[in-house]
């Protein structure tokens, strides 16, 4: 058992940390920097930030050097997440491009595709979104109903996608469509590198319960993709999709590190917030509930490190990731719910009227409801744990 980092890893961390200090927007770390509220300006801000990362070769560290990456080890990726969480870096607008599409192109794309797309993914010039989920295929990818029909060297695509994050900034979409009816539902799917800037593609915003807009519906009406925009083989999209999802090798690391940080912040809140002049942390009941959350957030982090150790040894992520996902999302929900209870009625103000931190806690509380749904619901994770880890028989309907 050894929790230390190698000298090389520590050096990597220091290099990144100094780069961030030098390159984050002024006032960022101090919390005085304000991100643009208006959508186009916000989008531009995110693209600029990614450009800056990519200029510093910090956008896609896991990619091979020849594609602009650093060929980072898994541990370096972990450190990368830790440092990004530490400074609460702005989100990666092209997360899908950098973490999913890029690696898939490197693995399965043609040389032409690689040349055409990869540099723009890295620079943020072309933002990607992913088109898997559909209204009737939330957690059930095999139920995709969007169709692509061959017409010469074109494919005519019709259907509807949902929960497409960043589609409103999106230039291209990694889209899964049904190209033939296979015997099994997950046969006959094909993956396309779809141009979003065409008449057949309509993006409609989904407003979340926290009032924010991260997700979209994408309506495809005779949208067009060309043969050159098929990735992998026709009708073999299931395999491409699965391998694409597998490229997220650090799993929910970033969420785990965030949870750790949020717990510290919650303690800070309980020390700062006062009721009738007494800081909340002085109540025995509050401290007890804090310890429960301390134990759980530590448990989540340590579980993650244990699974990471295994991954370092066997070379690929294990199905234990389902436990990490389940636990970190449920504990995150619990933590923010506690943050609401803790503050009492005064915690129910919003945005700049909020007493503490521009309603940081309230907004994250509302956002946390999505975390046990997106990326596979908690129910799906439990099925996975039951079936793939404990070997229980399959559920009905699957």
């Amino acid at each position, binding site marked *: 058992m050894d929790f230390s980092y190698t000298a090389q890893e520590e050096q990597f961390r220091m290099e990144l940390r100094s780069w961030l200090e030098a390159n984050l927007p002024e006032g960022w770390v101090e919390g005085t920097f304000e991100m643009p509220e208006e959508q186009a300006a916000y989008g531009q801000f995110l693209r600029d930030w990614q450009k800056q990362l990519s200029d510093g070769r910090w956008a896609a560290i896991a990619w091979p050097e020849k594609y602009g990456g650093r060929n980072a080890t898994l541990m370096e990726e972990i450190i990368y997440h830790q440092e990004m969480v530490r400074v609460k870096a702005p989100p990666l607008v092209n997360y899908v491009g950098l973490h999913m599409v890029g690696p898939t192109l490197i693995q399965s794309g043609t040389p032409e595709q690689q040349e055409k797309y990869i540099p723009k993914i890295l620079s943020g010039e072309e933002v990607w979104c992913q088109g898997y989920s559909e209204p009737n295929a939330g957690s059930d990818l095999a139920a995709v109903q969007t169709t692509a029909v061959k017409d010469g060297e074109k494919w005519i695509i019709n259907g509807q996608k949902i929960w497409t994050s960043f589609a409103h900034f999106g230039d291209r979409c990694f889209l899964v469509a049904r190209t033939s009816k296979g015997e099994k539902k997950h046969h006959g799917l094909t993956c396309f590198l779809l141009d979003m800037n065409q008449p057949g593609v309509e993006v409609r915003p989904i407003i979340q319960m926290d009032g924010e807009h991260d997700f979209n519906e994408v309506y495809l009406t005779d949208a067009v993709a060309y043969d050159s925009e098929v990735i992998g083989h026709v009708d073999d999209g299931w395999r491409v999709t699965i391998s694409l999802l597998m490229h997220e090798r650090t799993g929910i690391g970033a969420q785990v590190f965030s949870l750790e940080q949020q717990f510290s912040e919650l303690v800070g809140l309980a020390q700062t917030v006062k009721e009738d002049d007494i800081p909340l942390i002085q109540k025995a009941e509050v401290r007890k509930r804090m310890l429960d959350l301390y134990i759980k957030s530590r448990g989540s982090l340590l579980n993650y490190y244990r699974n990471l150790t295994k991954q370092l040894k066997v070379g690929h992520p294990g199905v234990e990731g389902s436990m990490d996902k389940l636990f970190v999302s449920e504990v995150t929900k619990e933590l923010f719910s506690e943050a609401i209870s803790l503050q*009492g009625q005064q915690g*129910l*103000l*919003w945005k700049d009227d909020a007493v503490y931190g521009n309603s940081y806690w309230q907004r994250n509380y509302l956002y946390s409801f999505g975390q046990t749904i997106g990326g596979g619901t908690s129910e799906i994770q439990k099925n996975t744990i039951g079936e793939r880890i404990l070997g229980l028989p399959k559920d009905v309907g699957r």
Partner: protein
Amino acid sequence: MDFSLSQEQEMFREYVRKYLTDMEQTKVARDYIDNKIEQVKTVLSELHELGCTQLNIPEQYDGMGLGKLDLVPIMEEMGRALVPGLHLETSAFAVPIIEQFGTSEQKAMYLPQIASGEASFTIAWLEPGRSYKQQGIQVKATLKNETVVINGVKTQVPDVGLAQYLIVPVLINDEVTVVIVDKSTSGTTLRDQKGFDETRKLTEVTFDKVEVPVNEIIGPIGDGWSIIQEGLLSYNAALSSVAVGAMEHIVEMASEYAKIREQFGNPIGRFQAIKHRLADMKLDLETARSLSYYANWALETAAEDRIEAICSARIFATQAFIRLSAHNIQIHGGIGFTEEIDCHLFVKRARFYENYLGSIEQYYEQAIESLNWEIPKKLIEKEIILSTQ
């Protein structure tokens, strides 16, 4: 033995239910979010026409002279549709304290206004950084001739736009005193505050040398805390009914969704993860209902256990409301996370009530104190001395 609402009470519920269903249930709450105040006022005045505001006001003050139990179905229906406004504060807090502690002039002045739907009351209690405990009240008022002069700030006062009067606890000579203040009184400054639950509008109210006639004090000077405690009993019994109504809506909408939404080739309600969660939710709902019925009965009959009964209902119902509103989102999946459907409105309202006019923690303490389980310290010390001799 008859532990149910009467036929008349159920019939009255049906009228209100039918009306609010015709109005598309939560639509009025959404109108309120969108500041369509006229639409909201229309609904509120039609609810008044149905009798909702007259119900528990004595006949001599133009009311229907019914009891506290008769409020139960109305409160449930209000919660079911998340009807905006101050029905809870007015009917279940202002009315009972005016009726119990007000002078005959005050009764004659305010009760008919409430009965006629002309005036609503909101409660300007909370102060910045302070609790709903007795020591939380710090706004000071002084007596000057025949007027009370108030100086200070109250925060998060709900729905002032729909109210005519504020019930304001202040300190006079360091003792809590309850004053009714017309919101248009000069020196009163209102500042909008953004709230987490958009179906409740919040306002910061600043009193700058606000002068109110002394006859706007409810009860004797310095008796405010015990008057508030009485009012809170009615309020909490009613609040638990509001929460029950909201939970009933949640269980219905979640069950319906579970019957139609398919995943993996089956309606999701066929999966035990969903089915058993819904069963737990139904049990929570019915338990909250039983506790709230009993709380309101205990209130009406002044039963010996009314304090613990009301606190129990208030604690259980508001906490169950938080649980159920969260489960509702999980059952709905992604769509439940959007603004489009109602799930989030219930989550936010549940949180609004959690610690509104008294924290859960305070109600635990109140119930425990009333149940009187503790052994007086003196007795223990005496026994320790005896046993160690």
